[in-house]
């Protein structure tokens, strides 16, 4: 990996813009020219690569936040309701 951190390089996107583009970059919503510019910058900038990596790690950690769900009691109540309705309310031969 070479250092292409050349201040004369017209395509270089400053780090301060990169940090605001990471979500768009990860979502794949940047146009091809901007995507290429972001990737060229990342190739030459350790700090922005670390930033991107930390952003990904943040997303992964958010995926481990326990999600609220229904209490076991509420779920059991729903299953009882399902059973009761299936027995009482549903014609048995309607399924195609």
């Amino acid at each position, binding site marked *: 990996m070479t250092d292409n951190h050349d201040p004369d390089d017209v395509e270089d996107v400053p*780090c301060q813009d990169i940090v605001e583009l990471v979500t768009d970059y990860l979502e794949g919503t940047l146009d091809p020219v901007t995507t290429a510019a972001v990737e060229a910058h990342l190739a030459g*900038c350790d700090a922005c690569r670390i930033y991107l990596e930390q952003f990904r790690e943040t997303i992964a950690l958010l*995926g481990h936040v326990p999600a609220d769900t229904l209490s076991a009691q509420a*779920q059991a109540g729903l*299953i009882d309701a399902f059973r009761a309705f299936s*027995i009482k309310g*549903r014609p048995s031969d*309607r399924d195609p």
Partner: protein
Amino acid sequence: MSDRADDAVLHALRTGDAEAFARVVNDWSPAMIGRARAYVSTRASAEDVVQDTWLAVIRGLDRFEARSTLRTWVFRILVNIAKTRGVREARVVPVASMDPDAEAGPTIDPARFRGPDDPWPRHWLDEGAPHHWHTGTEDAAQAAISREVQDLVAAALEALPPRQREVVSLRDVHDLTSDEVCETLGLSAANQRVLLHRGRAKVRAALENYYHGTSERRQP
């Protein structure tokens, strides 16, 4: 869930398979609660909405014509019930374009970047640049996540402004697609990304504070 798997679930439910019903209730309810919270003010209300939704699903299964997937249909019922309840609770969902949570501005302190007179303006200052987090293991992603970090991430999420919290929660905790989030919250795709980005950046900053403090304690 693939369409075929969805068909199999529908068939099982229509034939009164209570175990299949228990499985979808278990699998889908967390995302349903996350989605309901966009409309109602409390977690308890969201749980009521999800229960009412499942009861409506039980009653409506025979009328469901499978023009959409079962999951889409269930979530549509959920949104209708949640909206009705949200109106009763007089919860005003802000218009996206006026959303203060999506307002512009940098997510990183501008003081961490070089000034306009620097040869490399707006690039990281040495002292401002992010450093690797000292996660205490080479393989941080695979290692068991410490309880402390889990709690920190959950607290940082809870502390976000409401719209950012909703978007980050639905996308990153509940794994909804951006299209589903836009539809649920009535957001444009661009606005959804702004809220997602700002929320994620704040959670990252909370982690950075945490790890930075840890590494400073380790290496005074």
